[in-house]
């Protein structure tokens, strides 16, 4: 158990187009990670596809860089596509 690795689990639901992060599992190898993910995260019919990724290979943004990375976009509302009038015929976009 001490030598088991942590894997992040991504599941695509029946109606979803993309895989979403749902949690993590411990496993000794990739196959076991896939099976453990299946056991833990799809037992209530949640998914049709699973990705497992070793947590160690994920590069994450550092929390102390939050201000530098994300604050500058706070006052740039013009980057949202909310200043255009959509014709009714377009429907939901």
């Amino acid at each position: 158990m001490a030598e088991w690795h942590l894997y992040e689990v991504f599941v695509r639901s029946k109606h979803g187009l993309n895989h979403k992060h749902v949690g993590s599992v411990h496993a000794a190898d990739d196959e076991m990670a896939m099976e453990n993910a299946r056991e833990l995260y799809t037992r209530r019919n949640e998914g049709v596809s699973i990705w497992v990724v070793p947590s160690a290979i994920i590069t994450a943004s550092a929390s102390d860089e939050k201000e530098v990375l994300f604050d500058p976009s706070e006052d740039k509302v013009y980057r949202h596509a909310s200043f255009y009038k959509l014709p009714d015929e377009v429907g939901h976009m």
Partner: protein
Amino acid sequence: MTQQEALQEYLLRLADSDMILGQRLSELVGKAPALEEELASTNVALDLIGQARHWYEYAADLINNGRDADNLAFLRDAHDYRNLLMVEQPNGDYAVTIARQFFFDVWHYFTLQSLVNASDERIANVAAKAIKEATYHLRRSAEWVRRMGDGTEESHRRIQHAFDLLWRFTGELVTPDDTDHAMFKAGIGPDPEQLKQDWFGMVHEVAAQATLTPGKEDAWMYMGGKHGVHTEHLGFILAEMQFLPRAYPDATTW
């Protein structure tokens, strides 16, 4: 033995083996070596108990004396149980749990593969659903056998010990009796000779990949589960499993 008696007997064997192994695996709730394994083992347990329910329901309909599926599961004593001796063996360490599962899964998989094409439509329908579950069970237990056998010195020693310990119960999986022959003739159960070949074929294949040595085919084997002659373990399993419905027969919610 009429055809219907053979069918009832055969259904009870399928149901009882599923039920007892499901109960055994349920003992791991809160005690498995890892959280992931606990969920995996109990998912398998739930699959098996679900399958048992279908076989019991069919058996109850044939027996047709007012007994239902619950009644067959919870109100029969050990000598009426028809499960394989393999599935009543204690969980032991995790290698024993896995080896027991693997030996059973190989048998279960090839048996269900025949039942999918049974001339009896109700059996074919249950088997069609069950084989998806059993295919996964086998994949999982075979991977664990390889992982342990070809793993560390300690894991190899343990899974080899589990193979040696449980080998004496494997003969019953592949030794047919009158009921098995009758079911084959009726176009329901597997060809006993083929089942035996398939079982040994897969066990030897996986054992080789796992660097394990399986026992000999002609080793002395314990038999009797299919006829109600059990090891000392079954009584204790039933005592725990049946306590509640026996003590509170009118309870409708738990």
